[in-house]
């Protein structure tokens, strides 16, 4: 039994289990956690390299043959997502060393981060639908605790909204899985793909597929289900916000892409046109909501909603180039969004507040000019300026849309990019660039505050360099995305890898 696809799940889980008894020795707990994240990153890179060259890798857990047992499947898309989880996880760990206060660290913060990463990698690598539900619950429970960790009033209020809506999404998912099992008789993804293609119960399958769309739509914060995200993402610790915004919504998008390219492609005209409308509305409502906000992380939270619209636009267009655009966008977006939230933490450390228009508060440029440069890179990448990664990601999606003459969504995508730029410039002007008022009454409140910790700035600089690198090597990344998207659309290869050459 080849253990490589299981390692990205085992390593963070073992690190979490090993670091929980070390609660009286914070340095050891922290080290065990970081080693777990590092192990995850290395293993996931090896997995991606192996899958890219050798094809889809599948492991039957317990040696029960598919479709009776649970399969762990790694194709290129899953491996890419696992690498992204490794990068964001390691970034969150290193950032938390300097960026999270000691009280939270004593409350099992690092083991919880590892459990979250284990759940995320489990969701990316599983080949069984109910196992996906279980991994969703693992990562959901860890995220609930991480969101409420610290116990400030704002956190608890945000947690209630987060918990409620995500639990509803889990319950929709559970009901959909139950009805699908009743209709088709199997839960293995490859087997479901086969039986759906045989044409069993088409009406019921279409209905269930829309229920899955609702469940994953709530999880990935699409229109009209996204309202929990701006209500809760700006409350927890900054490293936690960054990890959530960079990784958790993407698990929902991954599940959506997996469901609507592998499982439910029997009525593409219906399901994918709904997805196109949802994507367009997400883009627009997200960016218009962001224009009205006055707090740094709330602006970013609304922008998260809008960018997820781009990801689903690629899925909805459903051509190989469009799916490659979605995968490229995913790689660009995870790194940029996590980086933006990390920078929000740095700005908070320097200014003492997250509100944008704060007269008398020192601007970041005076105390941490490197953070300003990093913010410029991340913000312009989000808005889509060349030669950064966001430009190429948007270019691929726009090209894919133009190729199939889907002009409305292309125009929407371009206009939303323009408004995103406006939003980013607003943050830049208010928080990073404007000199504080020189009036005598407006004494700088915490202007003499500490400068950001080295670990925080190192992480942001590292992620910004990744953004620039993806932009510079865009052609190679595009080729990888095209290979991944062709493999996604080739359901027969998936089925053969999981179930062997049987039927």
């Amino acid at each position, binding site marked *: 039994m080849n253990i490589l696809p299981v390692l990205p799940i085992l390593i963070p889980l073992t690190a979490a289990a090993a670091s929980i008894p070390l609660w009286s020795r914070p340095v050891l707990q922290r080290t065990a956690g970081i080693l777990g994240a590092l192990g995850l990153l290395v293993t996931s890179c090896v997995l991606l390299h192996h899958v890219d060259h050798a094809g889809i890798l599948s492991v039957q857990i317990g040696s029960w043959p598919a479709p009776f047992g649970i399969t762990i499947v790694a194709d290129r898309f899953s491996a890419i997502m696992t690498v992204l989880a490794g990068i964001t996880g390691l970034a969150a760990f290193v950032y938390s060393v300097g960026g999270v206060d000691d009280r939270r660290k004593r409350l099992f913060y690092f083991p919880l981060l590892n459990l979250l990463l284990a759940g995320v990698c489990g969701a990316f690598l599983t080949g069984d639908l109910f196992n996906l539900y279980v991994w969703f619950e693992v990562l959901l429970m860890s995220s609930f605790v991480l969101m409420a960790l610290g116990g400030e009033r704002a956190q608890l209020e945000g947690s209630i909204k987060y918990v409620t809506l995500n639990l509803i999404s889990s319950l929709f998912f559970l009901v959909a899985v139950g009805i699908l099992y009743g*209709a088709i008789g199997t839960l293995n993804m490859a087997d479901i793909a086969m039986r759906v293609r045989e044409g069993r119960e088409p009406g019921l399958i279409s209905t269930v597929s829309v229920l899955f769309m609702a469940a994953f739509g709530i999880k990935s914060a699409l229109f009209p289900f996204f309202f929990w995200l701006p209500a809760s993402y700006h409350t927890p610790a900054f490293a936690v916000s960054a990890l959530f915004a960079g990784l958790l919504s993407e698990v929902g998008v991954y599940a959506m892409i997996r469901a609507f390219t592998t499982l439910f492609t029997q009525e593409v005209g219906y399901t994918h046109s709904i997805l196109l409308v949802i994507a367009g509305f997400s883009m627009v409502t997200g960016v218009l909501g962001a224009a009205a906000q006055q707090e740094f992380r709330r602006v970013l939270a609304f922008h998260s909603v809008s960018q997820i619209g781009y990801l689903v636009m690629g899925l909805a267009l459903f051509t190989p180039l469009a799916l490659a655009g979605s995968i490229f966008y995913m790689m660009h977006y995870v790194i940029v969004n996590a980086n933006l939230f990390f920078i929000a933490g740095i700005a908070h450390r320097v200014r003492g507040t997250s509100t944008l228009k704060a007269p008398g508060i020192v601007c970041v440029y005076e105390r941490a000019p490197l953070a300003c440069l990093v913010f410029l890179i991340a913000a312009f990448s989000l808005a889509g300026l060349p030669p950064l990664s966001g430009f190429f990601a948007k270019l691929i999606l726009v090209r894919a849309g133009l190729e199939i003459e889907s002009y409305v969504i292309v125009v929407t995508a371009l206009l939303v990019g323009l408004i995103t730029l406006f939003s980013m410039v607003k943050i830049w002007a208010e928080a990073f660039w404007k000199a504080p008022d020189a009036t005598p009454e407006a004494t700088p409140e915490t202007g003499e505050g500490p400068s950001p910790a080295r670990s925080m700035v190192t992480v942001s600089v590292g992620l910004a360099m990744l953004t620039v690198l993806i932009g510079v090597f865009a052609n190679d990344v595009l080729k990888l995305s095209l290979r991944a998207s062709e493999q996604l659309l080739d359901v027969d290869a998936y089925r053969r890898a999981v179930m062997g050459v049987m039927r």
Partner: protein
Amino acid sequence: MQLVFAVIAGVLFAAGFYMMLRRSVLKLAIGLALIGHAANLTIFVAGGLTRARAAIVPPGADALASGVADPLPQALILTAIVISFGVVAFTIVLISAASRAAGTDDATCFAEIDA
């Protein structure tokens, strides 16, 4: 029999969502528990209702006889019950801490963070 179970699941869903829309956050937690039960019942019905045919291989035979009850939905429901038990326990502690911090259990007062 399926109709009875379907109606009960529907009533539980309706009751659960009604409770979730109430003002008090404790009723929110009760609503979550109710829709958890409703989801479990739905899986049970969707898996097929077979009476009194346990999924046990008869002595001397190699495989299950046909027409036995399907054990897989029951396993799914057990997993879902355990997960929702843990989740509801967490939710109750969360709302108790939030009510104590806000001084009230009125959900409309939890708007401090909506600037």
